[in-house]
């Protein structure tokens, strides 16, 4: 991206500082999205500076332009939250989903509900670890040939665990399937 040229050193410094704030405010986004926003703000600054009279000091003119454009952290907040959401539901990447949920929590109860669903899913996946630590107390338990419980139980007397270490792939496949399902729902909700 080509920087906006300035003759005055102070103007160049103000410009660089502002663009760094834009970079910081968009750091959570994918490189393409970040560059797109940087270019948009860069173009705005350039075009606005072209309208300023030549005799006006560059630094003063730039400060006016930037004041009108607004505080990047504040102005870009809803934009970054929306773009992150799009990115997250497109890639199914858990890191992006987590960041998007965090950025959008204030934007409606639905994001809170999805947050809880993902949290429950994370708790469910912990069963894989408990199966390794306490194999006899974690699994699919039957009592008198009837289903008794699934997961971690403290008192296993009278029950029979039937999956053994197959419990781990069963939980893993369930977690992945549920994750894809929840994220698909998240995506559908977001498109509305």
């Amino acid at each position, binding site marked *: 991206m080509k920087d906006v040229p300035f003759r005055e050193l102070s103007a160049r410094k103000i410009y660089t500082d502002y663009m760094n704030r834009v970079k910081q405010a968009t750091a959570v986004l994918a490189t393409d999205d970040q560059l797109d926003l940087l270019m948009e703000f*860069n173009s705005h600054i350039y075009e606005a500076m072209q309208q300023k009279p030549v005799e006006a000091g560059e630094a003063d003119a730039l400060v006016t332009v930037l004041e009108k454009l*607004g505080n990047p952290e504040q102005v*870009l907040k809803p*934009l970054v939250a*929306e773009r992150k959401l799009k990115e997250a539901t497109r890639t199914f990447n858990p890191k992006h989903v987590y960041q998007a949920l965090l950025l959008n929590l204030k934007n409606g109860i639905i994001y809170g509900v999805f947050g809880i669903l993902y949290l429950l899913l994370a708790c469910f996946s912990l069963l894989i670890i408990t199966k390794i630590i306490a194999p006899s107390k974690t699994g699919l338990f039957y009592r008198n040939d009837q289903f008794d419980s699934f997961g971690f139980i403290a008192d296993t007397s009278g029950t029979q665990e039937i999956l053994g270490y197959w419990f781990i792939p069963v939980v893993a496949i369930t977690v992945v399937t549920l994750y894809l399902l929840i994220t698909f729902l998240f995506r559908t909700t977001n498109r509305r």
Partner: protein
Amino acid sequence: MGEKIFFTIHIALLCILLYICLMNSDFVNNWASQVKKGTLSFIVLNILRKKEVYGYELIEEIKKFTAIEIAEGTLYPLMNRLKKENLVASKWVEQETGIPRKYYSLTKKGVSTLAEMQAYWTNLEKVIYKLQK
């Protein structure tokens, strides 16, 4: 004594009047700000109906046709939302200066949505006109 009481009442009345005026102007300001917020996307779509424009040009056009003073940066989240709703499309166009411009245009969906908004607006205008008669 009587004069003092009269003076105090006078001042108190003036204060109440000032308070009512301020409250009233607060109410009008809030209302105006809500109207601005609510109509900004309608204004933007109307500008795009005539021609493709780039971000800064769009702000200038808004200023030219309306008395709306917007925090210029807030236009970009709005454009992002309109793009997400598939009402507008955008493309980067290289410039001789080396600093490209992002041009926005109306999509097919944008055109039909704008027509719906226009119909609603015309109807609202008629209703308000009737009420004022």
